[in-house]
């Protein structure tokens, strides 16, 4: 528990509570969560990006996630505390750094993991967010415009560097954090 707490920088009581949450979601009672376990949370099931978010918990080809993996993914959403900002940069970068938060968001778009968001990948996410309410044509023009604005090297796809550049003015630290109590 000690080493886990230090990499994730969560308090002992937070980890205990998250473990009890984990076990209550684990309907199969086998120490791991499946996609169905996540989908049983109604508020997540109605989230337009719910499936992508759930996907982020599972490694390639896996359909179960254990508590360690669960915590690793959650750790991206831990807020950055003031004392961490000034920390020396020698150790491995914490999962909740600005860059790792952005990387997490980038991977939600980049389904084929080629480190580029293609027009197709962007369209898929857009379609998940708007449902049937906007026509293919209109969505296509939104995608084109978005890529055009962000694309610097002219390959009609967004690399991680371009992604970071577009979002440089956005308060990622706050928007991609959930507030843990004590």
């Amino acid at each position, binding site marked *: 528990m000690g080493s886990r707490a230090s990499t994730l920088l969560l308090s002992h*009581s*937070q980890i*205990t*509570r*998250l473990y*009890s*949450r984990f076990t*209550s*979601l684990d309907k199969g009672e086998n120490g791991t969560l499946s996609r169905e376990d*996540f*989908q*049983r*949370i*109604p*508020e*997540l*099931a*109605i*989230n*337009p*990006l*719910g499936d992508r*978010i759930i996907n982020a918990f599972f490694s390639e080809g896996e359909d179960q996630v254990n508590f360690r993996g669960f915590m690793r993914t*959650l750790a991206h*959403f831990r807020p950055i505390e003031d004392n961490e900002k000034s920390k020396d940069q020698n150790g491995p970068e914490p999962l909740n750094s600005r860059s790792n938060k952005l990387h*997490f*968001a980038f991977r*939600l*778009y980049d389904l084929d993991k080629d480190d580029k968001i293609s027009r197709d990948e962007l369209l898929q*996410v*857009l379609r*998940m*967010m*708007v*449902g*049937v*309410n*906007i*026509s293919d044509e*209109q969505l296509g*023009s*939104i995608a084109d*415009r*978005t890529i055009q604005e*962000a694309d610097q090297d002219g390959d009609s796809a*967004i690399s991680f560097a371009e*992604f970071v550049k*577009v*979002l440089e003015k*956005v308060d*990622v630290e706050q*928007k*991609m*954090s*959930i*507030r*843990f*109590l*004590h």
Partner: protein
Amino acid sequence: GVDLGFLGPWACLSTGWWWSSCLVWATIRMEKGNKKAQPQLLKTPVANGIIERDETTMEKEIAGLHRVDFEFSDIFYFCRKGFEAIVEDEVTQRFSSEELVSWNLLTRTNVNFHYVSLRLTVVWVVGVVVRYCFLLPLRFTLAAIGITSMIVGTTVVGQLPNSSVKSYLSELVHLTCSRILVRALSGTIHYHNKENKPQKGGICVANHTSPIDAIILTNDGCYAMVGQVHGGLMGVIQRATVKACPHVWFERSEVKDRHLVTKRLREHVADKSKLPILIFPEGTCINNTSVMMFKKGSFEIGGTIYPVAIKYDPQFGDAFWNSSKYNIVSYLLRIMTSWAIVCNVWYMPPMVRKEGEDAVQFANRVRSAIAQQGGLTELPWDGGLKRAKVKDTFREEQQKNYSKMLVRNGSIGNLSTGTESD
């Protein structure tokens, strides 16, 4: 630690009168003890939340940026909401036992037995002996007497021709037996505002925690129950009681037929000589911390609605029936080995449907009243989510809201499909 003294009066619980005063005294003792013991007991984290949820609306969060188009950062809002729901969500935790602030000396709830001090362990061991070796056999005997006399009594009364004598006797049997059964659960129930008690020809609606809700209400007056025919012991009781009293039991196949259900309930309500109907409009047991969506069916029938709020005191035992985890027999065993069932019942002023109000609005108004009186959280979710998956329409609603925002911000002319009509 908890004072040993409160165990003293447990010895005199064989008489009902003593029993209730013991409980009151024990409550005070336990509360006192808890205050003293808190720094010790609270070492295990049982406060009420893991995270503080962000209540910013999507419109404020995304559109507040004065931009005109979709941006990559739009997914941040949905991501955060999704992760918040994973860490802590409003709905699923209502389908498992309520979390207590401190351990109530029972080997259950979220904090099972854990070693705090020798003194507390001794108290706990004495408690186990008292609960299992003394209370359980006593309660079990009472329950057996209660159930047997209910079945025999209603069957005998059921042989009589329909008359006022029959309904009088039937009420007598129901009341007597449910009082025996409440004793079997060591129920201490406080009924408030008895002047608002449901009248004949009306419909009583209440929040639902457990099947014993029905016994607790019947303890103070008879109702015609509405429900589905069960198998096993419940089925035997149902078949016996319906002979004496006009309960409305539906076969499994009939429940799906909403028109038939409404028709039979309407007929019942139209007859002003018949007992008030008792309905739990949530349709499933919730852990008594919240009230979920009321199904509109009961509010379409017409007639006067008598709302009732039931709130159990979790300190003495967990009344919630987690039906997906325990069957009815093991549930009852847990209840009978708890300290007691302590609860408050509030009869609330009758409500009728206002002009221009549809059944759903009326249902919500009644639900708010019950939630407020019982100190329960109001949740818009359907209790059916305990077993079923959430309907796609809720997700579509979110997608529609997001689309509208893109349109309003001018990135596209108008919505392609006729979604403006709502």
